[in-house]
């Protein structure tokens, strides 16, 4: 028996669906923030660059889905989920400090804090370590989001989990995650094939992240090595990924890396992601060989970060949902 989903939204809703969901004041605020961002980077002598949104390769990240675009002649492209790969090629080509403002696309991400198409500010600083870059993120946000300009809080991923979830993320199992969720009265999904990082993400989303950045900004750094993505891993007990995120009022605003320079290690991670995708029935995507070759030719020591502009705008406008700051969210695009 097939039940028609009665709530599937049609392409054209009629009535008022041609109108922007964001008010004019918020559209003006966006323009104002864009100006401030350009000034911020100009004063710091960071070069504004522009890289393609349409790429032959795609991110292999397990938790990102790329929109696929087929040309009439059968060439397959992907809309980028972030400008990271071509920006790193520019870094390897000697561009120096660079930044970019662009639209990125992530399939299946829609909700109060997600829109499949959103605006990212991404920048790379040569010779910076994550702490120096976190301070720069703090400086930029102080200009864009005055409410977040009071003293920021810095803690490791481990400290944040211990403080808010009473759990050591480096020494816990599925049972421990389930227990802390239960004790806190949260629902524990029953038949779930979540892996260890999946459980940590669930605990973080329920118990840790909502408590971050209540006053000023909150930075979390030193992630589990299994969540390194494109960050380098620092040996130790436990080894940690030199990765950070910024939160304000429980909302994730930025994600940064001390960038991985090792091309062979990068290839291994891409390959592991591909194996995961294959075994989990996720679409296979072509590796970015141009990026890997650029890494082989040498990426300068650097740290990079991506900041979600729509969320910053939402918080600056005192809005509750991205729809209030995006003129035409995907439902009306």
């Amino acid at each position: 028996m097939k039940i028609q989903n009665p709530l599937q939204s049609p392409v054209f809703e009629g009535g008022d669906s041609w109108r922007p969901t964001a008010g004019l004041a918020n559209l003006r605020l966006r323009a104002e923030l864009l100006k401030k961002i350009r000034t911020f980077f100009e004063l710091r002598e960071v070069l504004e660059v522009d890289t393609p949104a349409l790429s032959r390769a795609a991110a292999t990240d397990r938790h990102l889905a790329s929109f696929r675009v087929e040309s009439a002649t059968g060439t397959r492209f992907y809309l980028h989920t972030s400008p990271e790969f071509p920006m790193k090629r520019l870094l390897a080509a000697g561009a120096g400090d660079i930044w970019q403002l662009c639209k990125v696309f992530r399939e299946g991400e829609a909700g109060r804090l997600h829109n499949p198409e959103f605006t990212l500010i991404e920048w790379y600083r040569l010779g910076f370590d994550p702490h120096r870059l976190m301070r720069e993120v703090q400086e930029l946000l102080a200009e864009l989001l005055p409410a977040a300009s009071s003293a920021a809080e810095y803690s490791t991923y481990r400290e944040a989990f211990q403080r808010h979830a009473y759990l050591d993320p480096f020494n816990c199992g599925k049972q421990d995650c389930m227990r802390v969720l239960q004790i806190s009265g949260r629902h524990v999904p029953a038949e779930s094939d979540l892996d260890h990082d999946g459980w940590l993400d669930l605990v973080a989303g329920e118990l840790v992240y909502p408590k971050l950045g209540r006053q000023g900004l909150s930075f979390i750094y030193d992630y589990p090595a299994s969540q390194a993505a494109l960050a380098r891993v620092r040996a130790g007990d436990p080894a940690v990924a030199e990765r950070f995120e910024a939160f304000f009022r429980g909302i994730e605003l930025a994600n940064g890396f001390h960038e991985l320079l090792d091309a062979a290690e990068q290839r291994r991670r891409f390959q592991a992601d591909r194996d995961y995708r294959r075994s989990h029935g996720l679409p296979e995507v072509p590796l970015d060989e141009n990026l890997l070759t650029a890494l082989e030719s040498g990426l300068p020591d650097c740290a990079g970060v991506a900041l979600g502009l729509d969320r910053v705008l939402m918080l600056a406008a005192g809005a509750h949902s991205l729809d209030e700051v995006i003129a035409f969210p995907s439902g009306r695009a």
Partner: protein
Amino acid sequence: MASYSTSEFRAGLKIIMDGDPYNIVENEFVKPGKGQAFNRVKIRNLRTGKVLDRNFKSGDAVEAADVSDMEFQYLYNDGEMWHFMNPENYEQLAADKTAMGDAGKWLKGEEVCIITLWNGRPLSVQAPVFATLKITHCEPGVRGDTVSGATKPATVETGATVQVPLFVNEGEIIKVDTRTGKYSARVKE
């Protein structure tokens, strides 16, 4: 078996959880930029009315509930069950006390009600928003008191009790909002 993927979750969607039909009240997509996505939903049990919070790993599928709303005309109550008829095909069905909830308090006969059916069986019954009922008993009215806001209990012809303003008299006809059970207006015959 029909199912919905979490990407189809929206307020109003009807799903089966642990064998019971539920209505999705709220759906929030939660995803760390570099991590696992979840759908955090508030669901209401359509049988018991109980509201629960549930986490689903995004991409998981959930059984769809065959729940629909249909109009039925109220016929009579046999002391245990309330009997209704589909005015289009004259098919009859009976709802028990649980499905009726408070709706039975406002029905005299022939009212068109909305019945929520699950696999063809009545899950809940909504009486028309306004019931027009005669007052069969109440204390005598206080003439001219249309402003004090004070109320008194009145029994209506269906046997239900409604708080009415002091100026309302026995034998008069009133309109009651069945969603709240509150007096709404006096009706001139």
